[in-house]
C-alpha cells in the first residue's frame, strides 16, 4: 500500500508538466500599444467577438478606439551585439484593431492572431491627446485589472495620432519600442522628465489633492521628441507644459539631477548666459492663515555657467549679478507657471495632498474632496522664492 502511495507521489512529480506553460513562440508579445480615437472617415472594421453587431450598450459620446499594437517577432530580436543586417522593420509587427473598449479591441486583435496575446513585456502605452482630454479612466480599468501589465511601463501622451509614435523606427536599436521606452527612461535619468511611469500615474489619479503629469512626446519621423508634460485634472488632460516649464516643475519638486539649461540675460548688459542647475532643493511649506492655506515654495538651486556669449567678462561681481538675475527670472517664471496651473485647476505639485496631510481638520471641514480643493486651489496664495547660486563656470576663467 505504502509503496503504491510513493509511486503516485513520484508520478505526480515527474509526469506533470506546467499547466500554464506558454513557450515564447506561442505568445504574441505586445511591446507597445497606441490608443487613438477612430476617425469617422476611417474604415472601421469591427468583428463580432465580444458582442453581436449593434448590441454594444449605447452611451453618450460613444468612443471607438483604434488600437495599434506593436508585436515582437520572436527569433528576430537579437540579444546583444549582432551582425548588421537586421533592420528594425523585421523585428516588430504593427497591427491595428478597433473596439469600443480596450478589451474589446484586444479581443478583436486576438481573433486575428494565432498566438496568445501577452502583455507582460509591454513597454509603453501611447495615448492620443483626444482621448486624454476626454478622460483616461475608461482605458485605465483594463490595464489596472490585467495582471500581466507592468506598473513600470511608460504612459505617454502625444498630440495628434498616437500610431505615428509607434511608426518611429530608429536606426540604432533593433526594437523600436525598446528604443522609445529608453528615450523616456534616459530622459528621467538626465532630469528631463519626472519619474512618472504607469504605476505612478495611477497613484496620482487616485490620490486626493494630487493631479497627474504624463510625458508628452511628438513623433519625428524615425524618432521621437520629448515634448514636455501633459497635466491633468483628475482623469482629464487640461493642458501641456513645454520642456522649460517641465524643468520648472522638476525644480519645484526638488528633483535631481536637473536636465534643462536656462538662458539668462542680466539687464542693461550685452552678455547672454546659459546656466545649468546642478543641485536643487525645494521645500513646500504650508501655513493656515485666517482659515486659509498659504503656500510657500522655497527653491534652492546650485548651478554653473555653461555658455557665455556676446561678451567675455566673467568675474565674481558679474556672477553675483547673474545670480540675482537668475533668481528673479526664475521666480517670475515659476510664478507664471503656477498661475497657469491654478487657472487650469491642476494641482500637479500635490499641494492639496500636503494640506490634507498637515491640516486634516481643515480638509475635512472646508475642502472635503477634490472638487472642493480645486475651488480653493484656484485662488490659493502661493509664494515662490528662488535662490540661485552659481558655483562654477567651467574651464574658462573669464
Amino acid at each position, binding site marked *: 500500500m505504502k509503496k503504491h502511495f510513493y509511486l503516485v507521489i513520484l508520478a505526480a512529480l515527474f509526469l506533470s508538466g506546467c499547466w*500554464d506553460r506558454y513557450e515564447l513562440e506561442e505568445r504574441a508579445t505586445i511591446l507597445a500599444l497606441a490608443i487613438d480615437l477612430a476617425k469617422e472617415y476611417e474604415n472601421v472594421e469591427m468583428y463580432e467577438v465580444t458582442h453581436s453587431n449593434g448590441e454594444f450598450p449605447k452611451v453618450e459620446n460613444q468612443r471607438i478606439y483604434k488600437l495599434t499594437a506593436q508585436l515582437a517577432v520572436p527569433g528576430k530580436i537579437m540579444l546583444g551585439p549582432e551582425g548588421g543586417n537586421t533592420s528594425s522593420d523585421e523585428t516588430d509587427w504593427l497591427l491595428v484593431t478597433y473596439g469600443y473598449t480596450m478589451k474589446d479591441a484586444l479581443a478583436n486583435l486576438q481573433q486575428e492572431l494565432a498566438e496568445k496575446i501577452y502583455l507582460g513585456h509591454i513597454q509603453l502605452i501611447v495615448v492620443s491627446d483626444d482621448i486624454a482630454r476626454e478622460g483616461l479612466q475608461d482605458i485605465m480599468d483594463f490595464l489596472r485589472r490585467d495582471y500581466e501589465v507592468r506598473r*513600470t511601463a511608460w504612459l505617454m501622451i502625444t498630440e495628434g495620432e498616437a500610431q505615428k509614435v509607434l511608426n518611429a523606427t530608429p536606426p540604432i536599436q533593433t526594437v523600436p519600442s525598446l528604443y522609445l521606452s529608453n528615450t523616456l527612461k534616459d530622459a528621467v535619468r538626465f532630469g528631463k522628465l519626472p*519619474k512618472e511611469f504607469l504605476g505612478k500615474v495611477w*497613484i496620482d489619479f487616485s*490620490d486626493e489633492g494630487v493631479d497627474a503629469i504624463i510625458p508628452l512626446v511628438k513623433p519625428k519621423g524615425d524618432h521621437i521628441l520629448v515634448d514636455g508634460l501633459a497635466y491633468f485634472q483628475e482623469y482629464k488632460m487640461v493642458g501641456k507644459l513645454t520642456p522649460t516649464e517641465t524643468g520648472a516643475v522638476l525644480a519645484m519638486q526638488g528633483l535631481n539631477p536637473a536636465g534643462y539649461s536656462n538662458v539668462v540675460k542680466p539687464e542693461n548688459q550685452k552678455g547672454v548666459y546659459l546656466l545649468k542647475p546642478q543641485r536643487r532643493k525645494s521645500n513646500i511649506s504650508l501655513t493656515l492663515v485666517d482659515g486659509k492655506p498659504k503656500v510657500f515654495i522655497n527653491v534652492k538651486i546650485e548651478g554653473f555657467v555653461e555658455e557665455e556669449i556676446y561678451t567675455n567678462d566673467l568675474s565674481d561681481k558679474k556672477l553675483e549679478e547673474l545670480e540675482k538675475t537668475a533668481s528673479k527670472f526664475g521666480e517670475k517664471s515659476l510664478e507664471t507657471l503656477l498661475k497657469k496651473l491654478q487657472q487650469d485647476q491642476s494641482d500637479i505639485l*500635490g499641494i492639496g*495632498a500636503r494640506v490634507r496631510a498637515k491640516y*486634516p*481638520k481643515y480638509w475635512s471641514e472646508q475642502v472635503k474632496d477634490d472638487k472642493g480643493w480645486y475651488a480653493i486651489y484656484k485662488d490659493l496664495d502661493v509664494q515662490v522664492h528662488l535662490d540661485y547660486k552659481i558655483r562654477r563656470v567651467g574651464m574658462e576663467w573669464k
Partner: protein
Amino acid sequence: MKHTDSISSIQLAIIIASTIIGVSLLVLPRFVVAEVGEAAILACIVGLFISFMSVFSIMQLGKKYRHHTMIGCNRLLLGKYVGNFFNFLILIVTIIIMGLDLRQFAEVLASGLLPNTPIEVSILLMIILCALVGYRNVSTFAYIHVFYLPFLLIPMVFFIFAYEDIEAYHLLPILGHQLSLKQFMSGAIVMTCAITNYFVIAMLIPYIKDYENSLKNSIWGFFLGGLAILYTIIICLGVFGVNEMEDMYWPVLSLSRIIQIPGDVLSRIDAIILITWIFAVFTTLCSYFFVIVRGTAELFRTDHYGFISTLMIPIVFIIALIPNNVYEIYNYAIKVSYIGLFLFIILPAGLFIIGRIRNKVGVR
C-alpha cells in the same frame, strides 16, 4: 504522555515569527487601510499590541501549566465538558481559517501567476505538502520553520528600493481623517485577527526545553514578525496612499511590481516576492495544520498523527472550495476571525485568570 522530543525557546520565537508572516500579508495592508486610512500604522501597532497581550497570557499560562497544551488547559480548568466544547471550537475555527487561507493563496496564484491552473490543484498540492510534514515529531516542525525564516525575511529587503516613491503626504496625518475611536479600533482588530495564528505556541508549551527563557524569546519572535508586517504596511501606504490601496486587491503584489532594483539586475521582482510569499503561506499553513492534527490527536487521546492528517486533507480541501468568489472569501474570513479573536485572545487570558482563582495545579 511522554515526550521525547523538544524544542528550544529560540525555535519557539522563530515559529512565532514565520507563522504570523503568512497568507494575510498580501492583503492585510489593504484591509487595515480601508478601515482607518492613514492611521493604518498606528492601528497596526495597537493591533500588534493586543496580540502581544495574548502571547503574553499564553506564555504565562504555560508557565503555570508547564505540561499542558491549550487543549489540556481547557480541559483542566474548564472541566471536561466545557473544556472540550472550547477545544472543538478551536479545532473547527482553525480548520475553517486554514481552508480560507488556502483559498486566498490559490486565488492569488490564479489571478497573478498561474491563470490556467485549476485552483483545486494548487489547493490540494498545498494541503498534501502540509500533511506530509509529519506531526509526530515536534522538533521536525520547528526545524521547518527555522529553515524557511530567512527565505521569508530576506526578500522583504527588496521593498526598501521603493523608498524613492514614498510620499510623506501618503503617510500623514498619522491619526487619520476624522476617525472615531471605534473605527480606529476596528482597524486595529483587523490587524489582530490576521495574526491570531501565533496561537500555535499554545500547542508547543510542553515541548519547550528552556522555559525560563521562552517568554523573552517569544517576545522577540513576535516582535520580529510584527515588525516585518508593520514595515510592509508602511511601505505600501507610503507608496500607494489610501485611495489607491483601496482600489487594489493585493497591494503587496502591486508593490513588488513597481519596485525597480537599481542597476537593472532584476527587471521584475514580483516573481521573487510571490515565491517568498508561497514560503510564508506554507509555514503558516503548517502551523494551522499542526494545531489541527496535534489538537485532534490530543482531544481523542490518540497518537495516530498520520491518520489524522490524512483525514484532514479532504475536510480542509472542501472548506477551501466553499466560497464562490474572491469577495466571499474575505467576507467569510472576517466573520470567522472574530470568533478566532475570542478563542485565541480572550480565552487564554480568561484561562489564566480562572487558573489563578481556582488555583489548580497542573499534572504531569
